[in-house]
């Protein structure tokens, strides 16, 4: 699990790479999400394009981010979700919770339009 971050117009874009499976670097993603939200950045876009794998611990991290952003009146959205991860989101019904965008443009537009 590697990640890089960008900030643009009040939106935090977090690009994840590898396996989001809990332990080590995956916990750094949780910490970064929660501390950014704590510091006031509550509009977050997770780029899942390079994520090959998510297990239930990884899903827990996504949920933690989602809840924290919402508590601050913001929102966390996903983009570039591959078919493997899409199937896990479907199986666990988390697809009904996370907003998923196909393209970066759409995702950014939806977040920058919001007033969080």
């Amino acid at each position, binding site marked *: 699990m590697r990640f890089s971050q960008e900030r643009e117009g009040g939106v935090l874009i977090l690009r994840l790479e590898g396996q989001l499976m809990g332990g080590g670097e995956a916990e750094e993603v949780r910490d970064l999400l929660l501390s950014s939200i704590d510091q006031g950045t509550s509009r977050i876009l997770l780029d899942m394009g390079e994520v090959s794998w998510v*297990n239930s611990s990884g899903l827990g991290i996504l949920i933690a981010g989602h809840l924290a952003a919402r508590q601050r009146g913001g929102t966390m959205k996903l983009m570039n979700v591959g078919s493997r991860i899409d199937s*896990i989101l479907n199986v666990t019904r988390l697809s009904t919770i996370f907003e998923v965008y196909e393209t970066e443009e759409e995702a950014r537009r939806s977040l920058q339009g919001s007033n969080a």
Partner: protein
Amino acid sequence: MDQVIQLAIPSRLELLPVLDRLVQGIAEQMDFSEDEADAIAISVIEAGTNAIQHGHKKDASKTVEFRFNLNPDHLQVVVRDTGPGFDVDAVLSSDPTRPEDLMKSSGRGIFIMRQMMDRVDFAIRPREGTFVYLRKSKDVNGRGVAPA
């Protein structure tokens, strides 16, 4: 007897990707489809995660054992930790997809295994430990991933 692969790893979550690689290799060797291979791999990883996290409380000096039985028509995987076990019935009767549970940050591992595999069984044996039995058949409606 001549179709058993055994793996033993220390209880470290960082090793799960290594497990993923091995399982994908075994699934490929058995000619499972890619979707089926993914389903098997994630299930074994979930069982391994539970063994490390709940069974061994991440004590790296404790070993998690994986036993892969390669049969012509199905794969059986047994995951063993030496922890105290848990109340299986209570866990099996809970459903993490109920609207009120959907936001819980945990409690999905066993559910995912049961969605992805044909059979999931548990055995808690005093002094021996906790055993998870995962079974996936070949061809028979090759459902690697549950419908949305």
